[in-house]
């Protein structure tokens, strides 16, 4: 394969692969953070 198309293919694979991997992390860990914020807001509301 010629140099430029190969370079773009690698960039595309890095972009899509990285995006998919970080998205899984955000989906799992973000849910935990969302629950923590809700808990904090509820506690603040109850406390005053």
């Amino acid at each position: 394969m010629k140099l430029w198309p190969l370079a773009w293919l690698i960039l595309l694979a890095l972009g899509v692969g990285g995006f998919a991997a970080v998205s899984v992390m955000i989906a799992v860990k973000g849910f935990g953070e969302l629950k923590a914020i809700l808990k904090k807001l509820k506690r603040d509301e109850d406390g005053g």
Partner: protein
Amino acid sequence: MNLSAVDIAIVGAYLALTIYSGTYAKKYIKDLSGFLVAERSMGLNLGLASLISSEIGIITYMYLAEAGYRNGLAALMIGIPFFLVFLFLGRTGFIIKPLLELRIMTLPELFERKYGPGVRFLAGLLMAVGGIINFGVFPGVEAKFINTVTGLPANAILWTMIVLLAVVLLYTALGGMISVIFTNYIQYILLSLGMVFLTVFGFFKVGWPQIVSTVEKTFGARGVNPFAAGSPFGWTFFFWQLLFQLSVLTIAPYITMRIFSAKDSRTGTRIFTWSSVMFLARAVIPVFWGVLALSCLTVKPDDPLQALPLMIVQLTPKGLLGLMLAAFLAASMSTYASYLLSWSSIIAQDLVGVTYKRLSGRRLDDRRLLIVNRATMAGIIVFMIWWSFSFKSEELLFFYLLLAVNLFLAGTLISAVFGIYFHDARFGLLRGRSWGAALAFVLGAVPTVLFFLPSHPPVSRLGIWSYALALGGMVVGSVAQNIFKPVPKTGDAA
């Protein structure tokens, strides 16, 4: 109509969930800090979800896909400066760290502390004008997308956009940043699924050899090599984009509000490091869709902006179109919510707030600032509907959007750097002062004004000029003020 009953049900369920989660946050909003920066409670993962989903909308897909459709694989170059600048900021904390440590809510606040209220007002004014003429084209461009994907008649689109904007206004104006964080999470899950699906599915359906050969046949060498003659993505573009992205990522209010919402400065800089990969993908995925459209559309549309929605209708299997549309609407609504919040807060705090204080001698209280914020959001929506349907340009939409925010970016970056790093007596005549900051803002805005003339120099050159002029203005103005109005030994340096 291209949507089946299942598709419509999916879109309806998504809209209902968005309104519910957004308005649910309302009861937790107690003051302006809760409204604007969510009590600084955001962690790394929600911060990333919020930043990315607010920075990806149908408009992002449309302008980047247009760049790919009209320029081929060489347009993938657009993603590289994003990656490099995010990584640099995340690793060094340049500008970001001092801003986080100052605990401010909008960037013009920094200018008031460093240069006085006049510069704050000028910065706020240019930010509001540049930001709103950039934001103002979103509904019109997105209407084209929704029109094509759904198959709705053109006269129904205006009402579709009005309903969408009204939903966003409802939950943003009521719940502020907390509702934006809630809804951004849901929106992020949907949009990331949609983006990965369309890219992988399209890649295997069309095939890489077919994509490369179409690009080479259509554009020749400049379709794959960004440095070939005739390509708009050469070195000038690359260096301008490094400066431009450095400015956007450190000072654009829709980005900084996300970072100011982080729970500490370490979380803020980590969001930047992780975002390097995400923003690379944010650029390369839609550009690739544009190239994909070029390769798979048998009938080429007259308007290049239509290429992406036409390709989605052609490629997406029946039954998945509703999910894709919900994903794309999700992406857009989070962008609208975030931009509305940031531009209205600039107008309320930096224009109305500063003017009120100057005229009355008193600070506008938080309750009134919130009312101004919400009224401004409604005003911006009315302007957007008018501007987006009356705006016309022959340039790449990507370039229009860049040049619109360029109105304030160069002046803001140079003033922020001099305000943070060159603001004490050690720098002698080069010490950043208010005359320099004002001149940096005014001169940095000139190339954007030139862009709106019927005939103008190449866009990348205009972009580079902005930074050169802003830097020149800062140096000349500051040196002049340090000579003619030196800082008293115990006084402040405004």
